[in-house]
């Protein structure tokens, strides 16, 4: 398009400043994880790798990390099953209340986290406690799965819409039954969508703090809860900072995987 030179320069400057604002705070956390000063005076006068080794040996961090991984895997497993079932129902059938199902799936992520959190907390305490199930990892998985379903649902729905029903009909014509068609035809075609959705779901769960606060109970600490609990303790500041830096570095992994997955689908 024809843009005046001034507008072009201004837009380019806006882009560069915007990216700088996005990355400078993350960069500061990375540098501070090597900052020898415990109060993170800026600019750092000395650099040290001491905090990284301290954090690595910290039992609380390891336990919390492991809890987060378990919660993320559990929630993603539940969401994969529920999301795929719901997506099949909505995409392949016409029935009364179909739009409501889509809305229902989105609702847990559209409402403020604190509303979902206290609603589940209240329900768990009144329904599960008499059954002898206390707040813990199980309730965290239930809470996370509730808002993770939407990621799988959206991905599978989009894939099913694009696939159409022709391959499945061909499979049935060739004598495969419902389960065989799903196992040998539909599932392989869905795999990359499930992977992309599962990745997003795991990331959502791994990062979640508000619903977790209300569903975890006293004994269970996920990594975000650990960070939040230690954020205001000056003594723990260097370790919190190392954990934050490590999470920033790790956030490149899903981006890389997502690129790989979307690269796969292009070959489809």
């Amino acid at each position, binding site marked *: *398009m*024809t*843009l*005046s030179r001034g*507008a072009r320069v201004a837009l*380019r400057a806006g*882009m560069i400043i*915007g*990216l700088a*604002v*996005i990355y400078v*705070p*993350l960069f*500061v*956390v990375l540098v501070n994880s090597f900052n020898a000063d415990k*109060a*993170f*005076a*800026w*600019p750092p006068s000395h650099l040290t790798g001491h905090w990284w080794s301290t954090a690595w040996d910290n039992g609380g961090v390891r336990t919390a990390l492991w809890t987060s991984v378990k919660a993320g895997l559990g929630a993603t497993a539940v969401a994969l099953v*529920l999301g795929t*079932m*719901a997506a099949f*129902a909505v995409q392949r059938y016409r029935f009364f209340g179909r739009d409501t*199902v889509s809305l*229902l799936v989105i*609702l*847990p992520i*559209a*409402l*403020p986290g*604190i*509303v*979902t959190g*206290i*609603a589940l*907390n*209240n*329900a768990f305490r009144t329904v599960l406690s008499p059954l002898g199930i206390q707040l813990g990892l199980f309730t965290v998985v*239930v809470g996370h799965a*509730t808002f993770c*379903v939407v990621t799988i649902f959206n991905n599978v729905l989009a894939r099913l819409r694009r696939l159409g029903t022709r391959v499945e009909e061909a499979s049935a014509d060739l004598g495969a*039954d*419902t*389960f*065989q068609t799903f196992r*040998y035809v539909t599932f392989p075609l869905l795999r990359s969508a499930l992977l992309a959705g599962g990745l997003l779901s795991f990331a959502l769960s*791994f990062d979640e703090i508000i619903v977790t606060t*209300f569903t975890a109970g006293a004994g269970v600490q996920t990594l*975000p809860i650990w*960070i*939040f609990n230690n*954020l205001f303790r000056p003594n723990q500041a260097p370790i*919190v900072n190392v954990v*934050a830096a490590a999470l*920033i570095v790790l*956030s*490149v992994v899903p*981006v890389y995987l997502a*690129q790989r997955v979307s690269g796969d689908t292009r070959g489809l």
Partner: protein
Amino acid sequence: MSITATPGGPVRRLAGLLHRRPYLRLATLLSAPLLWLVVAYLGSLAALFAAAFWTTDDFTGEVVKQFNLDNFQELWSQTVYRTITVRSVGVAAAVTVIDAAVAFPMAFYMAKIASPRAQRWLVIAVLTPLWASYLVKAYAWRIMFSGSGVLSWILDPFGIHGPGYGLPATITTLAYLWLPYMILPIYAGLERLPNSLLDAAGDLGARTFRTFRTVIWPVAVPAVIAGSIFTFSLSLGDYITVKIVGGKSQLIGNVVYDNIGAADNLPFAAAVATIPVVIMVIYLVAVRRTGALDNL
């Protein structure tokens, strides 16, 4: 062939039954998701909002299950809650406006000026921080705003003191957190706008500003509104960021949180929690008329 199910086996018979009865198939598919989302989730929400009409006995701390409007009356009559509501809406609105102002030039550059190769990299560059943890980003700004942090280091030589922790820090951090949610819809909307339209506007004599006003803006508005749903609703329910960088400031989320934790007054917390939900429903209904929801 590796397919082993024998004709007439129980699995095969079940498959045949499902094949003949589409409604049975549909019912099976819907059973688990609906059991989870309707019974467990909607049930919990309903129970919560029912609790908003109950009260807590001041002496025993027990919930009194008797319908009344005391909680809502208190919310209405105490000015402190009105102030906090107005403040929360103000913060959410400020975050949305800042994000729109920052995101628009970036999205425009990505969609219309950058080369296709640069475009791909810019999308990745904007998306990557989305995967970085929410807490880590809030923490990063806590470090930025701290007394010996980067902002003071930059501002002090000019004789200006950094704002420290408070509402400005909260707005900055929230705007930072939700910025990608605003860039992506605008980028997607502008990318759909054909370049030929912009060229045509130029050929017909429109200058940059007029092209912007008459061609780009009408296409961009639904996209901006779609982004604003995220920035607005995510800011409205937040209480973690304000705890990390907000100093002593309180938003609606904090009132809910404090009533659950320290005060152990679930009915009142439930009543307070209806405020952001009602505001969001009003916002969504208003927005639906612009057609922005189709842009999500």
